[in-house]
């Protein structure tokens, strides 16, 4: 069993990820690429890059599960699973020995998911945002663009905010208008970015109640841990962001791949 490996490929709206795990559910290698228009080709490339990163051969990967909105384009996958199941599996992994319920919140490029699990890790309810990218990664991308700041600097900038400003909406379009208003009145970029982070948190809390251990997955939380800290303050509970939060969907897919392979052999 030592030489068998599993792969999860997550073709998300903004980023495509592949993760290779071993029999002991350790991550041996992974890759993250921006999602392009040729999903099938991109999936092949991330798979190859993840293999190289793990330093293993394609043939030793015994089972591949694809997830994400482009999951059906991964023609080399043995099975497809929704991102709901995969984020639930990946998000829970680091906390599976803890008792009690858990809520996994995935803030993705274009949609948010709130997944409630019971103490055995079984999904009891989930919610995805409506036909609107409010409060998602796309929302923050737009705000960063409007303020002319690089996306990878927004977390640091928001940490230097001097006050919490309340943006009236988490709608991307309306918030952009509000940002223009704020620019006119001389509000700082730092305060406005933190205001956008607060909007993201408000959007999540509006979607569903969060119960038990709260785990944030997805690229937005990975690059902007301040969002977790704001959520923590609002809820007054510990909010966890796993290491490699952005690849939790692909990791969950790899964990499911192992389960499916062992179930079939």
């Amino acid at each position, binding site marked *: 069993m030592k030489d068998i490996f599993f792969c999860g490929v997550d073709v998300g709206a903004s980023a495509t990820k592949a993760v290779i795990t071993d029999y002991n559910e350790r991550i041996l290698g992974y890759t993250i690429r921006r999602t392009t228009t040729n999903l099938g080709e991109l999936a092949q490339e991330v798979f190859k890059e993840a293999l190289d990163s793990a330093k293993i051969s394609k043939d030793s990967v015994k089972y591949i599960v694809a997830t994400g*909105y482009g999951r059906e384009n991964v023609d080399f996958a043995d099975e497809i*699973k*929704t*991102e*709901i*199941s995969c984020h639930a599996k990946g998000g829970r992994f680091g906390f599976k020995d803890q008792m009690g319920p858990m809520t996994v919140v995935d803030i993705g490029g274009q*949609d948010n998911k709130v997944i409630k699990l019971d103490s055995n890790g*079984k*999904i*009891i*309810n*989930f*919610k*995805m*945002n*409506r*036909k609107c990218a409010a409060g998602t990664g796309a929302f923050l991308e737009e705000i960063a663009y409007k303020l002319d700041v690089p996306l990878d600097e927004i977390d640091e900038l928001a940490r230097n905010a001097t006050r919490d400003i309340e943006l009236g909406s988490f709608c991307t379009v309306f918030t952009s208008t509000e940002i223009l208003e704020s620019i006119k009145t001389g509000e700082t970029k730092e305060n406005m970015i933190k205001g956008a982070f607060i909007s993201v948190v408000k959007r999540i809390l509006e979607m569903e109640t969060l119960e038990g251990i709260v785990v944030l997955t997805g690229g937005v939380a990975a690059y902007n841990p301040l969002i977790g800290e704001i959520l923590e303050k609002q809820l007054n509970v510990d909010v966890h962001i796993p290491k490699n939060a952005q690849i939790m969907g692909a990791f969950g897919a790899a964990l499911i791949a192992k389960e499916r392979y062992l179930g079939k052999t």
Partner: protein
Amino acid sequence: MGPIVVMRGLQKAVDYYKVLKAEMEDRIANGIAAVDGERYRLYWDGMPIWGKLRALSEQFGRLNTCVVASTYCNSWIFDSFDPSDPFYSMAKAYTEIFINRSERVKEQYITDMVKKFKIDGVIFHDSKTCPNNSNARYGMPARIREKLGIPTLIISGDLNDLRCYSEEQAKTNIEAFIEQLEEG
């Protein structure tokens, strides 16, 4: 449900439902299910997403899942109509219909349907332009889930305006809902 809405009271509608009833009885007698290899039975609350009936039907079929009952189809059946007492019976029929009732009565109605049709999960369609036929807004899904121990799902959409409907998100939601049922 087209004939009962647009051909109410006409012989054509009566003839149509006679054919339908005979077919259904024949299927029951011969054990022919609507969906081959049926694994799950769902209840659909709220209006249909008319412009996506085929796409949804095909998706449920692929998932070996059958939507066996819905609130809205029965909204067009008025058992209380009585030709010998038209005014009283019309008043009774229109006031006792599901859409005009309280949350408590609606909850009991859905509960009875879930038991009657051996339902595994309930999908609530939250229709943007028909709030009166959307029962997901005041906690009904959570109450049904807790009371009956079956999962519920809310799909955002509309009966008519497909700009309010995200096909990809709905598709993923339904697929994830079936994965949730598979977990047991």
